[in-house]
């Protein structure tokens, strides 16, 4: 009959493993396609692959002939790798987030003039919903955009804007911050495009005069910094996040 002991339900954060229904069981689900013909050998190949990835007891729970010598798999396995969660440090935008009203007040009190922000979706990217969500009046999920912020002047140049044009406009308007939105990431086209932007800014001697921010569903702050941006914003960003960052940073850097 059952022994009476309490479960080992407490986690060791220095050795974290996936969790199915028992601490440290390592349970993971994987789906993938292999370019090998459907059959027992294919299943075995899938099992071996998952084993090489460090999963014990790989179990091919489903495989399907995709035709033309390709096979689809659903595999479960018990991952043996562990992660030291206790030492993880993630680069984050560090400004405190102020509400829309607070932003307006902060500018009035600490900057004393209108803050000029200009944004665009650059390159051949035609996705505007993200940048619109940040800039336009209407905003996103009930959070108004920069156009509704007091003491902020914001311009949305739309999409498919060449980097050169965006920079020219920023120069013309003496922008305090430039917002670049990128959604299409296939073949790292966004990396190319974002990098080119930084290079052009530097060539124009503008890089340390204006804050340069980027954003999009596949952008992280870390990536942004690597590419030479001041900050990067991913999914579920609202205008107040962006504005708070810009105005705090302007004060910090004395760009008043």
């Amino acid at each position, binding site marked *: *009959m*059952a*022994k*009476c*002991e*309490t*479960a080992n*339900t407490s986690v060791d954060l220095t050795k974290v493993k996936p*969790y*199915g*229904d*028992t*601490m440290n069981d390592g*349970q993971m*689900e994987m789906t993938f396609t292999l370019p090998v013909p459907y059959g027992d050998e294919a299943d075995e190949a899938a099992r071996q692959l998952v084993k090489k990835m460090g999963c014990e007891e790989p*179990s*091919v*729970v*489903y495989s*399907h002939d995709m035709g033309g010598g390709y096979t689809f798999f*659903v595999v*479960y396995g018990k991952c043996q790798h562990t992660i030291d969660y206790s030492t993880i440090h993630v680069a984050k935008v560090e400004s405190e987030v102020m509400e829309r009203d607070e932003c307006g007040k902060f500018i009035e009190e600490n900057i004393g003039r209108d803050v000029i922000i200009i944004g665009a979706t650059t390159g051949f990217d035609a996705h505007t919903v993200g940048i619109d969500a940040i800039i336009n009046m209407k905003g996103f999920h009930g959070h108004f955009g920069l156009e509704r912020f007091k003491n902020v002047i914001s311009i949305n140049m739309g999409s498919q804007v060449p980097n050169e044009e965006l920079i020219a406009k920023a120069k013309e308007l003496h922008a305090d911050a430039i917002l670049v939105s990128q959604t299409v990431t296939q073949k790292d086209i966004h990396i190319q495009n974002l990098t080119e932007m930084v290079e052009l800014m530097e060539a124009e001697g503008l890089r340390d005069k204006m804050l340069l921010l980027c954003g999009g569903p596949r952008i992280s702050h870390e990536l942004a910094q690597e590419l030479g941006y001041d900050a990067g914003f991913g999914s579920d960003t609202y205008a107040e996040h962006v504005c708070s960052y810009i105005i705090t940073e302007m004060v910090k850097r004395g760009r008043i």
Partner: protein
Amino acid sequence: MKSKLNLDPKVIDSARQHAASIANSMQEFIDRHTTVSTERTILRLLGIDGIDDVETPLPNVVVDQIKEAGGLPRGVSYWIGNAMVQTGLQPQEIAEKMSKGELDITKLETTSAEKAEAAIMPAIQKSLEVINAQKKAREDYLERLGESRQPYCYVIVATGNIYEDVIQAEAAGRQGADIIAVIRTTAQSLLDYVPYGPTTEGFGGTYATQENFKIMRKALDDIGEEVGRYIRLCNYSSGLCMAEIAAMGAIERLDVMLNDALYGILFRDINMQRTLVDQYFSRIIIGYCDILFNSGEDNYLTTDDAYESAHTVLASQLINEQFAVVANIEEWQMGLGHAFEMDPSMENGFLYELSQAIMAREIFPNASLKYMPPTKYMTGNIFKGHVQDALFNLIAVWSGQSLQLLGMLTEAIHTPHMQDRYLSIENAKYIFNNARDIGSEVTFKDNGIIQKRAQFVLNEADKLLADIEEEGLFSTIEKGKFAGIKRPYEGGKGLEGVCLKDEQYFNPFITLMLGGAK
């Protein structure tokens, strides 16, 4: 309200009449018998708990000794009452002494049944007070915290370890579950005793013990406070200890219990006489303590074809309803089971499933229908499985099911992982909300596929019930008319625990509980 399926009320009445007569004639058999488990239940209700030094639960110790001495026909109520009269001890003390070999209650002098009964009355009153306090506690929680709209999201935990179960249940509660069922370990239903204490090892489920019930009840109450919603607890009583586990559920405030003799007979090969007798007492307890019971018709469709044998589900639901009526169970407490189990490759299968689900709702308008998800045709393809579950969820909100046992995308693979439960709750909540009022918006073509299907199934069920009424339920089961499984009258587990009552036999709980005593 007009039937959307154009069901003939006369056929419904006829089917229900047949079922009532089946239940009543079975009741004659039941009334003449008791079982070891029924007797142990009385002991548990009298407050006898604990185990002896070889881990045998005291209720088993007492009943076994009485049985060995040939005293079972008179019932433990008599023997304990008599022992109290003769020794002045309380039931628990009596049991303990018996377990130590210090007392042989069948060897004591004997008093009259009336006096014995009077002696145990205070213990019985105490027992009812405990149960009533739990009923009150449930009402208070429901009033204070409230609950979700139906269909309730009903999920299972099944790690084998009660403490791990708690973690899974807490996560599920936070994710939106309304009912948590702790699945029992494989084959507990075949044990002729209830294990004791908290347990951490089980296969495909966790032992049902009173301590485990208590641990989970506490966890769910706490999570309920956190999320501001009462979370119901469910466990299984079918099996050789049907009535005992029901009693434990009453004491520990379970809200839902699987309870179906037919399930035990067909799927666990439990002797039919034994479990039908046990079911009676277990349902009386359930009815009294406001537990909602679930019947197991859904299981039929795992061995039989869901399209061909749909009428057996309906027939069984009607029988289960009448067994519940006999036990004084209210309509809302009747969690009659059915399931979404047709082959997904069937053309128009969705329409047939929809038809049957609405049919169940129309025939049992006030029951808390328990709707079971696709299991048999789930495969390792978790993506397709998630879509099968989505259609199941759509039919549930459409037909107004009460208890939605959520399908798991990993059904064919393992008992649910934490993330599986989250994904299926999300699936259900999305669809329930997104199609909230579809049921009241839509009507069906006269004599179309949907209407005809329901009418057909109802007619077939009526015919089957007529046959059973004629033939008798025992013999129907012997012939394999449910789930395609045949079970002999004298076969299966637990027959040795069935016993004819003698004239002095009494069980005060039956009368008191049926009468709704305070």
